[in-house]
């Protein structure tokens, strides 16, 4: 059973060591800290970080973000090859001072909805009080200056994702178009579908703490609490 699910985006710029001397998106960072506080406030037995990666697999819970891969020669103790989403999730938990049990679960970016949902159901069943930290982003093609340039379909796609999350609608999340999500560089698709598989039958209550695309990538911070 999940005690709750926090959604957070996974851009490298979430990490203060990577953004230089000027504070970048303090409001996003604050929203992430807030959502983690909500998640941990439910006193879970375990926190599972779920994040998209090249391949599905569990990572050593002690792994950390490999900062040096983005910012040589910043030295750090990061784990080589740890998927970015998991590294950032681990970072957020560390920043909150969380010392309890955690798992780092990568979900392959090409996994179909059924596999994602099955994994989500397994995670929800794995303990009586599981908290999910679901890392992932919407489209990176939302503007002319976006990393993926502008694709006019991006806005509609991301709006559909947000509607589904606000309604706690697992079915709608599982029906997201996988090929379209990939075309739109919406990396969070498999992670949201893991979340969908973990949700209880009764739709949870959803609170959105942040939604914006300051750099042309859709970032969403939200908290889902089962009723």
């Amino acid at each position: 059973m999940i005690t709750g699910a926090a959604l957070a985006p996974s851009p490298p710029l979430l990490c203060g060591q990577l953004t230089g001397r000027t504070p970048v998106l303090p409001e996003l960072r604050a929203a992430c800290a807030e959502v983690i506080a909500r998640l941990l406030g439910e006193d879970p037995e375990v926190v599972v970080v779920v994040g998209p990666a090249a391949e599905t697999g569990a990572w050593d819970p002690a792994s950390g973000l490999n900062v040096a891969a983005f910012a040589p020669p910043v030295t750090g103790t990061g784990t080589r090859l740890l998927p970015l989403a998991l590294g950032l999730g681990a970072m957020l938990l560390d920043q909150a001072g969380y010392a309890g049990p955690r798992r780092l679960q990568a979900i392959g970016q090409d996994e179909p909805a059924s596999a994602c949902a099955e994994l989500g159901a397994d995670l929800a069943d794995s303990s009586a009080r599981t908290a999910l930290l679901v890392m992932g982003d919407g489209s990176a093609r939302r503007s002319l200056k976006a990393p993926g340039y502008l694709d006019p379909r991006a806005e509609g796609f991301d709006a559909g994702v947000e509607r589904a999350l606000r309604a706690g609608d697992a079915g709608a999340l599982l029906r997201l178009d996988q090929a379209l999500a990939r075309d739109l560089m919406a990396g969070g698709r498999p992670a949201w579908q893991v979340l969908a598989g973990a949700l209880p039958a009764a739709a949870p209550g959803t609170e959105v703490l942040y939604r914006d695309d300051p750099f042309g990538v859709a970032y969403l911070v939200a908290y889902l609490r089962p009723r």
Partner: protein
Amino acid sequence: MSDPGQSGGSGLAERRESGPQRVLRLGRHAFEPERLLVMAIVNRTPDSFYQPGVTWDPAVALERVHVVVEEGADIVDIGGVPARPGDEVPVSEEIRRTVPFIAAVREAHPELVISTDTWRHEVAREACAAGADLINDTWGGWDVRLTEVAAEFGAGLVCSHAGGLPPRTRPFRVAYDDVVDDVRSATLALAARAVLAGVDPARIVIDPAHDFGKNTWHSLEITRRLAELADTGWPVLVSLSNKDFVGETLDAPLDERLAGTLATTAVSAWLGARVFRVHQVRETRHVLSMVSAIRGDIPPARAVRGLA
């Protein structure tokens, strides 16, 4: 056409130890290793990132070539497609924008080295036929037929590291175990491939391509460790001018990046870069001459103070 030369396949590009660099041949010139060369950017586009459209009018563009030659440019780099994403520019349009202009520049400046800034072999073929001496491919060999064209025309080739990005795309969360090693192995592989295809090794240049498939930290790191690229023995070209890594380092908008660019130029020259692709030719020429004099490669222009 020159013989690809020495024996060996993959060993060919690796054989040089650090030490004396070789002569760089471009067009009919043979540039000694101490010569620091300025490549002036003349874009035949309406929408490049810096001063968009400034040389879109062919007459203005030709005048710009005259000016940069006066200011000390050794090479003029003529491009018809911006590096950033945007409306597609078909091959025919890219040719229309650049090839007649290359012919005009060749006629006006018979000795000037002309480079064609393109990644596409069809464009490179027409450009070389019109008089281009060097193919400047910033996208790292995306078109596998580009080396054929260089070999066919006896032209030179810039072998760049673009981090695997398709042309006209932006880096998205790029990460490297070691960006300099990645640059080194990618450019050496391209150079080796070019030699095997029949490109004259004396006409090959490597370019780490700052900001291409790299973030600001990566671009600073390759600058910091540029000597490792120079130590390969291949001449190194750097294209730093007004780039975002300068802007992000200094929090400087596009039109305030000259000092940062020149600082990077001086450091890169000191660490062994030989060709500098720039917008501001006169200032760059001054920086490079200063570095050469500090090195002892050239005397001051005129020394009388304290000597009278």
